[in-house]
Every structure is written in C-alpha cells, then in structure tokens.
C-alpha cells in the first residue's frame, strides 16, 4: 500500500515538471495557434544550458534557473522571428512544419556539437525517506519550482499590462493591432515566454535524470498528452494535466508492467481528445 502511495507521490512530483514543460507548449498554442514541434529540442536546449552553466561556473543548477529563463526567452524570440512569424495565421500544417524543421535544425546542430552521448548534471539534495521509499530532494525541489513558476505565469497573464496584452492578442490579433498593441512584438514575447518555460522545465529535468540530445522527443510527446488533458491553450490546466499524468503513471506502475504505461498514456490521450476536445481541465472561461 505504502508502495502505491510512494509511486503516486513520485508521479505527482515528476508530473509537476511535465506540467511546466507543457505550459510552454500550451501558451504558444493559446496565443498563436501554433503547435510547437521544436518543443522537445528546446527542452533539450534548457538541459544543455544548465549543464554547461554548472560545469563552467560550478554554481548549483537552481541558481542557474534565472539564466536559463533569460537564455530561453532570447532563444524563443530569435526562433520566432526566424521561423514562426511568417506562418502565423496560415494553415496549421505550415506552422507544424516550420517548427518541425526548426526541430531538425536544432537536433542536427546539437548532435554535431555534443553527439548523442548522455550528459548528467550533478545535483544532490537531501531527500525524504518514508520506510523504504525515498523521495529525492531533486524531485521535491523541481516540483516546488514548477509550481512557483506556474503561479508567477498566472499572475503575469492576469495582472500585468504585457500579460493582458498577450491575452488580448491571443483573443483577437487584428483588434489588438488596432488598439495600438504591437502584436508581432507581443507574439514574439509570448513565444519567448513559452520557450523559456520549456527551457526551465528542461533544466529541471536535467537535475532529475541524465539526458541526451534526443531526450526531448519523449518529453514533447508527454507534453502533448499533458496539454490535451489540461486543455489546449490553458497554462493553468497544463500544470493540473501534468500532475494528472504523473498520477496516472504512478498509479499504473504498481499494477501493470511498466511497458504498458505508454499504452495507457496514449490511449488516455486519444480518448480524452475525443471526449473532451478542449481538455478535461479546460475551464469554461467565465
């Protein structure tokens, strides 16, 4: 019994990080109707930023988080102007392919630079042990940071001028432009924000697990699942969706072989899409 509980708690902790990753994806979708297929590559970028940062300066990975945010934000803005700006408002296929091509470029360059060997960010934090089960400090810390960032994002979107501008642009781009909102800049900012979130989640994941240049693919798929659970375009839902996914994983493993987890995950994903196209946690915006 305690084993199951431990499994669920672990799932929730990791789920919060999945949620953070998905938040970046869902924000970008919500604002500009772009499904960012370079999401996985960007998560990997975050992993490497924190890897080189801790390697070069010896500071703790957590101290590096603000740097990751900045790097991610800047990278996001560059990516936006490079490949996303022109496909906004065009058929969904275009933006999917534009971001996918970006994924190819990033992965290609990263492989050339770093090969597909695994990397590891050494972090150690005291964990909490209950009976035989240990919840590692890194997991707990990652979940706390993920939750905090989600909170900050919510406040930003609802109580600051740039945040409201992002919502306005998401709601009606033409109108925003007519209201004097520089929409392209706002879109770039939103994209940068989404990328920054993905990068931070990558950095947090790097503190939990070793990673390779190709690790992003798995997290990207997980982000899709989370996004759909939480409701596309709904950052707050993404956190809940991530935690839900983590719980499902945690609950499933004690009872089924681990290799069945993806079946459960993606089965749930498809069923959720069919039953709730707007996501289980999609709030009817009041």
């Amino acid at each position, binding site marked *: 019994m305690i084993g199951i509980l431990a499994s669920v708690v672990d799932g929730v902790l990791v789920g919060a990080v999945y949620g953070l990753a998905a938040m970046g994806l869902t924000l970008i979708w919500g604002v500009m109707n772009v499904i960012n297929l370079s999401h996985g590559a960007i998560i990997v970028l975050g992993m490497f930023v924190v890897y080189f940062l801790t390697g070069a300066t010896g500071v703790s990975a957590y101290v590096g988080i603000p740097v990751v945010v900045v790097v991610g934000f800047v990278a996001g803005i560059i990516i936006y102007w490079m490949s996303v700006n022109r496909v906004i408002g065009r058929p969904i296929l275009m933006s999917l392919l534009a971001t996918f091509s970006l994924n190819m470029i990033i992965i290609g360059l990263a492989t050339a630079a770093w090969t597909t*060997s695994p990397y590891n960010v050494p972090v150690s934090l005291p964990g909490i042990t209950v009976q035989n089960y*240990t919840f590692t400090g890194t997991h707990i810390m990652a979940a706390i940071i993920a939750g905090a960032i989600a909170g900050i994002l919510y406040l930003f979107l609802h109580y600051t001028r740039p945040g409201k501008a992002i919502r306005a642009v998401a709601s009606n781009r033409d109108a925003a432009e007519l209201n004097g909102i520089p929409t392209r800049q706002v879109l770039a900012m939103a994209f940068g924000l989404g990328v920054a979130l993905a990068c931070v989640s990558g950095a947090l994941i790097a503190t939990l*697990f*070793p990673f390779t240049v190709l690790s992003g693919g798995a997290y990207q798929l997980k982000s899709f699942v989370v996004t759909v659970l939480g409701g596309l375009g709904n950052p707050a839902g993404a956190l809940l969706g991530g935690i839900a996914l983590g719980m499902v994983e945690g609950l499933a493993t*004690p009872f089924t*072989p681990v*290799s069945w987890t993806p079946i459960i995950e993606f089965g749930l994903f498809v069923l959720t899409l069919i039953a709730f196209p707007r996501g289980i946690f999609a709030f009817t915006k009041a």
Partner: protein
Amino acid sequence: MRKGFYLLAAAAFLAAGPALAEDTVTIGFTASQTGKLNNDSTSQLRGFELWRDDVNAKGGIKAGGKSYKVKFVSYDDESQGTRVQQLYTRLITQDKAQFLFSPYSSGLVATAAIISEQYGKVMMSIGGAEEKTYKLGNKYLFQTYTGASQYLAGALDVLKHKNPKAKIAFVYEDDPFSKAVAQATRELAKKDGFTVALEESYSSSTTDFGPIINKVISSGADALLGGGHYADGSTLARQLHDQKAKLKWVTLLVAPDSPNFSKLGDSAVGISVPSQWEPQVTYKPDFGPTPAEFAKEFTAKYKIAPGYHAAGGYSGAMILQHAIEKAGSIDPKKVAAELNKTDVTTFFGKCKFSTDPKSHGLQIGHTMVLAQWQMKDGKLVKEVIWPDNAKTANIMY
C-alpha cells in the same frame, strides 16, 4: 604460434619479391553517425579506423603475394533500418566493397545481411549480439561478440557464490538485444534456483525510473540485473542511488562499460557490467597487439580509454584480416571458408565461429568478463572481477 605467423608473413613477402603490387581492399559499412545509436557506433568506428591505420602503416593486408591497402567506404544509417539495404547494395554494387562490416545493433545487422548474403559478401558482424540474427540461414555473416544469452551468465555466477538464495529483479530495456539477454538469463536464474522477484521491461525512451524503482523496492529484491543501453542504464543507476534502493548487487548491460559512466560519481560505485572486453584483461594473443598495446595505442590516439565497442571493432576487423591472410586471397568464398576454420586468440580473447548450418557464424569461442566500478584511493575505477583467471580486483558485494 605468433612466431609462426611472422615466418609465414616473411615467406609471403619473400615470395612476392620486390614487385609487391600496391593493391587495395575496400571494406564497406554503415555507421550510426546520427540518431540514438551514435554513441556506441562511434566507439566501434574508432576501433575500425585504428585498425585500418595500423594495417596500412604496416603496408597493408598481405595475401597471396599481394599487399592490400585497406580503404573504407562508409555511410550514415541514422541508427535506423530504412536505408540500410539501399546503402549496403550501394556499397556492394557501386563502391565495389569486397568485404563488409555490419551496422551496429542486431536489427540492422539482420537487414543488412539479406543484401550481403545475396552477393556472397563476407560481413563481419560487430555489435549484433543477438543470437536470432545468426539463426536465419546466413552463410557469410560472422559474429565477433559473445551472444546475448551469455551476457549475464557471469553475474549469476557471482551471485551463486555470494548469495545463492538471492531474490533477483530483472529490469531491462524493451529492445531486441536487452530483451534477449534478460529472458535468457531469467531462465538460467530459475534453473540455478534463484527467485525472480520482479520482471519489468521499459521502453527505450524511458527517462524516469522512479516508478520502477519503487516497484523494485516493494518486491524486496536483493539484486537487480538488466539495463539496456547507455542513456537508460546510466539513468537507472543514478536513480537507484538517489532513491536509496537497498540493493546488494546491480549488473547493468552496456552503460557502465563506458568511461563516461564514472561521471555519475557515487551512483556508479558497485555497479557491475558484463563486458566483451576490458583493457586490463590478460589474454595472450596469437595474432595482433596485446590488450595493453591496444589500450595504449587507442588512448594515445583518442585521448580516452577504449571500451569494448572500440576493442570489438578493432578485433573484428583483425579477424577478417587474419582470415584473408590465411586464405591468401580476397576471394570471399575462400575467406569465408577460412573464417569457418578460425580458432584464434586476439587481445579481445578467443574467437571461433559455429559452422552448424542452423546457427552459422555464431560466436562460440569468445567469453565475457564482468567488470565493476569500485572506489580506489578516492577515484572511481572499473575493475575486472570475473572470471577468476582474468580478475584485477575482488568482488564488492
């Protein structure tokens, strides 16, 4: 034997006389320059290249009075099977490769073999450990490595000594190789009277082993055998440490063999790995360099200690060289016949191929060693702990 070889070579040299022709032999293969197998494949490629440079520096492969400089033609197979047949066809028909090395990993080997067999080209399989591949009716495919079923035999042997009643958890990657290893070992373990406490396979893309480790803890296992490749294996090792799974014995495939594994620090201590080869082994070769010579040369060139993939690459190529020289010809049929007869020890260990039509080309001479990461004077080192006659340190249980 070694002296004999030199005499033979000298004789060949004399027979050919000063008119020794500058011929080349082309060896074709695909490597995984990109994609998920890139890491292991690259080590292997380094082995190939070191061998080529050595051979060419010594004037090439000498056979039938001629001296053949070695030329490589290789392509990137992107770690996937899509283009393997296209590339091998191209290697054979366009690039006129006389001999082939296999791609890395069992699935790709099987795919490539369909092409090489059609053209009767000898293909040295390096990196395809799964026995299944050699039971499909191939005639020109020769396996360098010990087969998958033997990988964890050593670990079981150690457990037998230390704790014959051990409860074992099998946790392995869901890929052809790891699965074949784990399933063969599970049968062996049952036969030896161990309890199988848990059996779990995980997908290749798994990054979070938390749930599995909780399961391992719940199962009360003493030992964990399994793993898969580098990425997942190193993650598993680290999380086992982070989550303080109180296991007495952990043997993982492939991952801990890489020198990079030491970067895991404390998490690496005590982890053992079945290995085709370790630099410390003390085999006395009939042919080619000694283990120490090879390790030294490799380290000098690549600034990194060789793992078994690199050694396997070098030695696999060398077995081919040996057979060509024995056959005195680069005719594939003659070379294949010579390979069938091969019974030689190199720095990599013994090499002998099965000639049973049902498992032709399967490696039956080579044996594995078991290595373990241990702390020595505050530094992590990988020691050979099994078999007894090859060990460099005592088992840490």
